């Protein structure tokens, strides 16, 4: 706003404040229901119980083992599902775009991915309990086919790291499919022809041409998946009932009742999450810009 007013090169010589009246309702809404709540948490994390400024909460964030564990568990689950979902989603997108599968399968997969990436929260948790819970369908299937009882003979547990990761995968890899399918379409036929004319094998084409072009896009999407899992609350809460202490569950407990016995520390915990989300979104948009050099 100020920049437009001060910039002498601007096409409008005087700052025309009347034009800005048209966007005031939007800014007002954003300030009231998005900016202020965020600022409240930031301000709260720098305030002690007596209402004075302090950085003790931020420092304590790095000393409290239970909080560090929660962050670490969330980061591990988000990274595992981002990498796993990213690779699997990429292979699926590959199979329906350049992988030579019939066209109708492509639209079926894209439609299904649209649905599955939006299918989360309580219904998703219940679906996985019916699948991999103690009496779940697949649990019974494995028992009947291989004679292995997942819950007694292996350390598998749906309400743990791997269980939650498998559940998150249900919305993670479809998201990857949705992002990667257009990117794979962006690979130009000429590149492949040029590579083949120069005597490159299929492997060489993929390793030296296609993959480097796609890499920023793949990494960027994986970061997006990371953020997608990192901010998830409802699915984990419905699945584990709050027993698996990921960071969003801990923050939920702090909102319900001051379990840390220090409101400031609770705010700092929330702010730490926002910082991690912001870093991953910045990483995503940086990689997105790089990938646009070649694709589209």
């Amino acid at each position: 706003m100020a920049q437009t007013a001060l910039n002498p090169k601007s096409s409008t010589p005087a700052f025309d404040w009347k034009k800005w009246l048209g966007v005031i309702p939007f800014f007002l809404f954003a300030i009231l229901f998005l900016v202020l709540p965020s600022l409240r948490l930031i301000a709260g994390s720098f305030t002690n119980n007596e209402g004075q400024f302090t950085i003790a909460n931020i420092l304590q964030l790095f000393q409290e083992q239970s909080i560090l564990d929660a962050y670490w568990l969330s980061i591990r689950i988000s990274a595992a599902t981002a990498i796993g979902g990213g690779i699997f989603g990429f292979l699926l997108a590959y199979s329906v775009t350049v992988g030579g599968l019939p066209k109708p399968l492509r639209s079926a997969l894209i439609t299904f991915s649209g649905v599955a990436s939006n299918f989360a929260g309580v219904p998703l948790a219940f679906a996985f309990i019916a699948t991999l819970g103690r009496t779940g369908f697949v649990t019974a299937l494995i028992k009947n086919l291989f004679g292995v009882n997942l819950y007694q003979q292996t350390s598998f547990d749906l309400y743990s790291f791997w269980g939650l990761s498998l559940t998150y995968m249900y919305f993670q890899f479809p998201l990857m499919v949705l992002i990667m399918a257009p990117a794979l379409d962006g690979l130009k036929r000429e590149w492949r022809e040029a590579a083949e004319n120069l005597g490159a094998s299929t492997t060489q084409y993929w390793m030296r041409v296609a993959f480097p072009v796609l890499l920023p896009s793949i990494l960027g999407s994986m970061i997006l998946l990371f953020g997608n899992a990192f901010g998830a609350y409802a699915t984990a809460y419905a699945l584990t009932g709050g027993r698996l202490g990921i960071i969003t569950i801990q923050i939920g407990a702090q909102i319900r009742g001051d379990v840390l016995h220090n409101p400031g520390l609770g705010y700092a915990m929330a702010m730490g999450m926002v910082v991690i989300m912001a870093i991953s979104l910045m990483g995503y948009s940086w990689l997105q810009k790089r990938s646009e050099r070649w694709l589209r």
Partner: protein
Amino acid sequence: MASEKIGKVVEMSILTRIRRIPFWSWFWFILGALYFLLPLYATVNFSLRMERDVIGFKAYVRAFEDPEFIKTFLYSNMLALLTIVASIILIVPTAYWIRLRLPEARRIVEFITLLPFVVPAIILVFGLIRIYSSPVKIPFTDTTLLQPLTTFEVGTDILIVAGYVVLGLPYMYRSVDTGMRTVDVRTLTEAAQSLGASWFTIIVRVILPNIRAALLSGALLTFAIVVGEVTLASFLGVPAFGPYLFLLGQHRAYEPAALSFASFLLTWVAMGLIQLFTGGQGQTTGAH
């Protein structure tokens, strides 16, 4: 002799055809299909077995008959409708104005519409509760502007709809903005103005009908976010469908499975309609 040769040729063509079948593509595709379908199959299978040794829809009948289900589901639909209307009222004029007169505001508005990706639902509701559970005062005075929103029903409804508008902001804004890119906003506006139309008439009777496909896809995405939403609804304590389903899961087995599958079908319908209206441009939300 000749038949043997023909046999060999046929055999070879089958061989090359087999070689042309992309094995790994099929492998990944089938694996993906299994991942998609197994949980759904398990849920349906389970939901049909409420009565011992009988396959039937009893769990569905029970679930849909529950007055609490009807109440919460209608309430959630009402919230979704209010959210959609509020987002359209907020976003369409803003996006229109930016296109027409204020391109310099584009960057900052786009930045704001991306903020909900950085502030997940659990953080948003944390901040909303902390701000609006105490009275809003004019700074440095004791004059109360607004009673705490969380203490009365309409206040909570306003708060949760505002929260849902924020959660849907990235999707609604992008839909509307893409929709406006395909119509010549400037020419339409000038034509309407030369015919003596007011700003209100231009937006409601000229712009809105021209971007209806985009609006519909934004609205359906918002609907998909709001109807089953749990985080905001449970922390703000509203009688919505998401928290109801969660509580039902605590003490029932078959009805929640039935409702879960029904939710999946509902998401499917919403996404299918979007595909129909936007011509296959898949979109995705983030209300996990």
